[in-house]
């Protein structure tokens, strides 16, 4: 299965944050090149050999937005994830307009960073089909139906999106914030435990009685979907 490790360019000027993040990227099996200034990041960003770029916006020298704009101007199409302390929608939109592909605000949960990198690298493309086969289910996307053994389950539109997202990230931790953004387009955590209840509903629909659940809750981290249990 494993070929070359994913190569990541990581631009972040805060040494402590960089140390932690490089640790997580290393644990996930990625090869990381780190730079702490805008000039350095610009130089590396023009190298097409990277699979994903993680770009801090507030870099000393040249800011992250400008670097990515120049990257795109030089026809470098490497997917870019902005990592930033700016949370406004205007900044988010600006980040995407200059050519960024995704946007994560600090402070962040490291599984969320990894999930986003994976999604950018399109490794997850076939994981939906894989997870379906592994779970032994039959999926009917047009009717939003899952056939679990001999029971057919109808899902609500958002429940379906939630299940798809889980299956595409089989075995990976997904936090609440990530689910809210991808399924409901909410960039904040509402005061009511809506996601917990939704996940609970989905569990009741897809889990078989007397067997462990497909979706585990990890306290302080989020949820993990397992196709095979």
């Amino acid at each position: 299965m494993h070929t070359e490790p994913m190569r990541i360019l990581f631009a972040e000027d805060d040494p402590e944050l960089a140390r932690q993040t490089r640790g997580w990227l290393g644990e996930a099996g990625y090869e990381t090149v780190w730079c702490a200034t805008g000039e350095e990041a610009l130089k590396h960003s023009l190298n097409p050999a990277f699979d994903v770029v993680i770009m801090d916006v507030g870099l000393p020298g040249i800011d992250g937005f400008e670097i990515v704009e120049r990257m795109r101007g030089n026809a470098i199409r490497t997917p870019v994830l902005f990592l930033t302390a700016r949370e406004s929608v205007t900044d988010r939109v600006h980040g995407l307009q200059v050519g960024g592909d995704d946007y994560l605000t600090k402070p962040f949960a490291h599984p969320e960073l990894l999930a986003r990198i994976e999604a950018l690298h399109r490794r997850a493309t076939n994981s939906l089909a894989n997870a379906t086969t592994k779970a032994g289910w039959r999926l009917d996307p047009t009717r939003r139906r899952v056939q679990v053994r001999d029971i057919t389950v109808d899902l609500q539109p958002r429940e379906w999106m939630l299940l798809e997202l889980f299956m595409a990230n089989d075995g990976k931790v997904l936090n609440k914030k990530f689910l809210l953004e991808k399924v409901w387009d909410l960039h904040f955590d509402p005061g009511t435990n809506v996601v917990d209840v939704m996940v609970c509903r989905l569990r009741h629909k897809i889990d078989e009685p007397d067997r462990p659940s497909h979706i585990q809750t990890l306290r302080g981290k989020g949820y993990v979907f397992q196709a095979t249990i």
Partner: protein
Amino acid sequence: MQEELVELGALYNYGGLPVLRVAAAAQSDEAHHRIVRVTNADGEPLIESQVPEKNDDVWRKLVPFYLVAGEADWHILAVPQQGGKLVVGRIGLADGNRLWYARADGEELVAAGAATHGLLIMGALSSMFGLVPLLWFVQKVLQPLRTLIRGAHRLAAGSGTARLSAPDAIPELTEFAQEFNTSLDRIATLTGELHSVNEHLAHELRTPLARIRGNLENLLDHCGSPEAEDAAVRGMEEIDRATQLVHSILSIRLGDTGTMRLHLELTSPFELICDLVQLYAPAAEDRGLTIEYDTESDALVLLDRQRVRQVVTNLLDNALAYTPTGGHITLLQKVDGDGFLLRVQDTGPGLTAKDEQNIWRRFARGSAASAKTPGTGIGLALVRAVANAHFGEVGARNRPEGGAEFWVKLPLTPDVGEPLE
């Protein structure tokens, strides 16, 4: 129409009845039902451009009135025999008499000219006392003033880049416009500074919070002790709460000071609210509550989706937190000429008089809140701030049948938001 009334008034003040007779003859037009008349202070006619008895009964409907020189009032009278309406304007003249001017097609003219009403009266006053010739006044004062007012309307509608100009006006007005613009530039600079201070503050807080969070995550992954894991999880939850709180407080400040940048998109409020109602319905069901959503229209409105979603979720959070088991939450939404209106009704304990005064303030919590009621007391302040940023309004009341109702009203096309670079 105001303009005509004032000009006729000025002509009378200048040359008395003979001059007015000439003007009235030109103005009077039976086909369009324009009528000019002058009465004394008691309403007895001195001249009238139409046969008096024809409209006598109509005039009598107007009660006796008192007008100082230059003051005007307006009435709309039904004229059944002519199958329409007559707009009647009356203005006090310099010698104590009254000038009446009526038009059958005046209704739209009155509505269109309402904004400049006061100015015309001012102009009429100065003309009446012979201070300035009318034409000069209109060209150098009145028209530039109208341009200034239009500029001021654009500013009031939130266009931060609009500036006043009065190129052909008297020097005092031109200078006024320049001074005003200098002040606006200063405000724009301060607003820009507020934004950069906010960004700076957010950055200075978020980066260390991110460092601490990262270390707690590593602690959680590698400590192997349940007590330490619990401490790490609680620490991370606190950091996430603090991050969101700081973000909300800064948003409230921007909204309340009218400097929030909105990302406006053409949006179906129906879909936006439906999605959220579906998200909240299971959580409501768990609490023994039902949510019902009813809409009267499916129009598209310019909204900042994230912000408006925050408004709706905050109102739903409140309704869920304060409504006892077995209760109902009803969302009513409509879009009409006045704008977008959302009402969220619950069957909870309602609001005390003190609540009605305080609930929109930061960190205020409803009287019905207990230690177990979730929330930081910042949700409604944020709702109000977002409504402010859209040039909208918020309100709350107790429903006669019990429970509270919160409403948010946003204008249809808020002419706000910085253009996106």
